[in-house]
């Protein structure tokens, strides 16, 4: 840490910082976090975020159940996780303080809105005495600010009600954090204009409170230094900030455009997948048709109908919705039509933890249908990776005439990172072919297959190709209904071989780290950041640890068997009770060990490092696992 001076107060340089805003779910914490994220991205930091909000839109005010948080890790180097712990915590009320304080590093910055620390609010948070007054926060750099009072004063004269004025407090908190970390106000001022431009008084109030927060930091004697995190050395290019759900939507639009096949998105609102619908609904000028169905089953079956019609058909949901779609996904497998099913996983079972992340739907994706019902399953590793995975899902769907399941999760869907915008000519082209007309009376065989075992995608409107699809078993080649036992065996085998054959068409699985060694960490999906960071940290300490992160879960890449055999031990960390581990064990007879967590939260790097240390018999100093730096 070096110290320089800027204006009146000294500025300390940091490699990275982790900031968390927390408050009542009506306090605008997600907005505050999102704006700090965008601003940090624009100034060139690498970023990783962790929004964390309750399932209730408005739980009773001031209760612990209603606390909403947004954590941002920004750095001057590449980072992959939102940070294990927090360097600066902004708590808007006692409940937020009580539920978040444990994550603040010793000596960390603690900004508290003191106006909410009254007897009622304190009692709701379970405090017998006011923690701002009893010395219990002495281990932190505590800054108490009466945000309500200052905000009301800042917006005085704009004609806002008290309620409206208080709604601006998040901008005060933002302004203060912007000053603290030397962030420019311009991006957020532009956001205010875009978002509130039609309500001039509200826009002006937000502008004033943002600046009031910033100036408070600058002038108040409470704060004696500022922090600065320099821009990161990212690969050259133009960047934007992107969440996983935005990336999925953009990837779908891109695949549609690149395959010249209009996108039909049939879906039913569900957390945390709905933002894909919201994003796609904006892009009608790409020929996107979004259909908000009456239920999950209708969403899925409408997608089957649109696939038959020749559209690029996609549905998106989360675990409970995927359960409802199961029978119709079976119909899609039987009719061998191309489509994508996106599952933004959340905590289960049943309604579970709708706003929290989990990876417990892998076996549902693999086996959650009646009968032998194989389909390709792929998983995105990070917010930006959703963009590539959406396109890859469509490529597999059309090349193999099959529904494809794309797994993401609440963590990467809502989390964001900088995305290097690809050049249009870098994007994969996806070729869609429909057979042309034939003379009426000539036979057409809808279940004849090509070298990939894919059948032709003949679409209504094509003369001579009239045929009937359905859920009943199909006769090989003709596609007529068949109850013949030998035919059923043949068709079950064909569908299985078709999907298994995709392995030959996949890029070889990459390994991060030594090609052989003592320990291989195998992961999939949104745990990428924590696993990559943990394994790199272990290697930096001289440990023989490699990392494989699977995008393709069914089929597995062809070289995975060899990779697994090159290490003494295999560790499979997952946010479930061992689903990938079960698949790896059954497929490869490998004695994989699990690290399994189901708390609705991503892995911390420390947890993974500790487990790797245990397996290698190396003791890891406790302090090292608790650090936020990467």
């Amino acid at each position, binding site marked *: 840490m070096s110290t320089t001076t800027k204006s009146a107060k000294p500025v300390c340089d940091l490699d990275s910082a982790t900031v968390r805003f927390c408050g009542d779910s009506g306090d605008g914490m997600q907005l505050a976090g999102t704006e700090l994220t*965008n601003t940090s*991205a624009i100034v*060139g930091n690498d970023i990783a975020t962790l929004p964390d909000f309750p399932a209730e839109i408005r739980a009773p005010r001031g209760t612990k159940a209603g606390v909403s948080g947004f954590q941002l890790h920004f750095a001057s180097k590449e980072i992959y996780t939102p940070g294990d712990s927090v360097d600066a915590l902004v708590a808007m009320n006692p409940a937020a303080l009580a539920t978040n304080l444990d994550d603040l590093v010793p000596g960390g910055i603690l900004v508290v809105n003191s106006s909410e620390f009254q007897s009622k609010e304190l009692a709701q948070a379970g405090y017998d005495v006011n923690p701002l007054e009893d010395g219990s926060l002495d281990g932190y750099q505590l800054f108490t600010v009466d945000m309500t009072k200052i905000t009301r004063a800042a917006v005085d004269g704009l004609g806002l009600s008290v309620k409206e004025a208080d709604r601006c407090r998040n901008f005060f908190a933002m302004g203060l954090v912007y000053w603290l970390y030397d962030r420019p106000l311009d991006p957020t001022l*532009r956001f205010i204009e875009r978002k509130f431009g039609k309500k001039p008084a509200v826009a002006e109030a937000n502008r004033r409170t943002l600046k009031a927060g910033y100036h408070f930091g600058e002038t108040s004697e409470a704060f004696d230094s500022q922090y600065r995190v320099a*821009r990161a050395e990212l*690969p*050259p*290019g*133009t*960047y*934007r*900030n992107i969440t996983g759900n935005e990336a999925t939507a953009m990837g779908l639009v*891109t695949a549609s*455009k690149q395959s010249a096949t*209009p996108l*039909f998105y049939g879906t039913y609102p569900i957390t945390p997948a709905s933002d894909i619908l919201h994003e796609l609904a904006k*892009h*009608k*000028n*790409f*020929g*996107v*048709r979004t*259909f908000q*169905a*009456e239920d999950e*089953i*209708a*969403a899925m*079956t*409408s997608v*089957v*109908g*649109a696939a*038959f*019609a*020749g*559209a690029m*058909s996609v549905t998106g949901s989360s675990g409970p919705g995927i359960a409802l779609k199961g029978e*119709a996904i079976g*119909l899609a497998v039987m*009719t061998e039509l191309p489509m994508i099913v996106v599952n933004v996983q959340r905590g289960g079972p049943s309604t579970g933890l709708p706003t929290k992340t989990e990876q417990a739907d892998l076996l549902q994706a693999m086996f959650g249908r009646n009968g032998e019902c194989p389909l390709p399953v792929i998983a995105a590793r990070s917010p930006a990776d959703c963009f590539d995975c959406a396109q890859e899902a469509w490529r597999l769907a059309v090349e193999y005439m099959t529904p494809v399941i794309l797994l993401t999760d609440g963590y990467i869907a809502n989390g964001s990172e900088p995305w290097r*915008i690809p050049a*249009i000519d870098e994007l994969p082209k996806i070729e869609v072919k429909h057979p042309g*007309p034939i003379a*009426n009376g000539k036979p057409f065989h809808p279940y004849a297959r090509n070298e990939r075992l894919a059948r032709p995608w003949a679409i*209504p*409107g*094509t*003369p*001579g*190709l*009239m*045929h*009937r*699809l*359905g*859920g009943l078993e199909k006769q090989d080649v003709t596609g*007529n*209904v068949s109850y013949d036992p030998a035919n059923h065996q043949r068709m079950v085998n064909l569908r299985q071989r078709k999907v298994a054959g995709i392995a030959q068409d996949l890029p070889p699985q990459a390994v991060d780290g030594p090609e052989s060694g003592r320990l291989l960490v195998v992961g999939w999906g949104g745990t990428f950041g924590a696993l990559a960071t943990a394994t790199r940290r272990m290697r930096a300490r001289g440990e023989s640890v490699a990392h494989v992160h699977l995008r393709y879960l069914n089929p597995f890449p062809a070289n995975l068997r060899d990779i697994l055999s090159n290490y003494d031990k295999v560790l499979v960390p997952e946010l479930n009770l061992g689903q990938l581990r079960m698949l790896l064990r059954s497929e490869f007879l490998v004695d994989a060990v699990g690290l399994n967590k189901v708390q609705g939260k991503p892995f911390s790097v420390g947890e993974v490092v500790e487990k790797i240390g245990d397996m290698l018999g190396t003791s890891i100093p406790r302090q090292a696992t608790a650090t936020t730096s990467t």
Partner: protein
Amino acid sequence: MTSSALPVLTASDFASDQDVRWCPGCGDYAILAQMKKTLAQVGASQENTVFISGIGCSSRFPYYMNTYGMHSIHGRAPAVATGLKVARPDLNVWVITGDGDGLSIGGNHLIHAIRRNLDINIILFNNRIYGLTKGQYSPTSPLGKVTKSSPVGAIDNPLHPLSIAIGAEASFVARSIDVNIKHLGMVLKRASEHRGTSFVEVYQNCLVFNDGAFSHTTDRATKSDATLELEHGKPMIFGKNREKGIRLNGMDPEVVELGKGITEDDLLFHDEQAPEPTLAYLLSRMNYPEFPEPIGVYRAIDQPRYDALINEQVEEVTKAKGEGSLEKLFHSGETWTIQ
């Protein structure tokens, strides 16, 4: 097929090469025959026509048509058809369903397809029984119906399919009878011509599991008293000698004898274009023997259609914003450049 001469198709051109496997004597045969005739009559083409069905005896229908088709899953045909029609508004889409498929397991999809008023035709074969699963009571079986699953009588209050459709804001509602082939042909033709969702209930006899469920409407002795043929703008008259009529008494219909001081002008006149569905609903509640059961077109009004609207929105937004450019999309919002 690419020749510019219009091919003239006959009913037999719409028959597929598959053996029809319904039970001999099933009412479905008559409906299949009328459908093929209707398609030929209205000049439909094989390749632009799609039949979508769910599960049940009636849902085997698409296999027997030389058109595109999908025998989908139980109850979901209206949703499959919705995706198909939204993606391809140029296609003629028919949904074939039954009383169990459409009103029980698929009730939700049926009402939502109807309220969206996509330009599709939904034909519900009502035989008041589950035939394919061999004889359980259905949502239209009368109270007390003794079946394998209701040995001492069904205790579920039956649904009136047309009341459901009208309640779901249907723009076209009609009823016909499997063996009344001329009438059925007329109703199918009207359904085909209607722009918007056409909902047609067909009384269909299941010879094996529920024979005679609608015999009152088909037997020579009772049919003229048991049915009322609706005609737009005409008074509601029925009976063997057209001696009876329907009159409104307060808010309730009543059967009256013509003559004896009652003239046609005192009767209820049918108006299939009435903006409010009140009359259609009242008709849908008339059951034999208290009333004749109306057949024909109950309601045919022009309403906005989902498939047209969704595609108009795409066109309007494209016109306003220009055709989508990935370059622009990727660079929307705040961006920054690293050299």
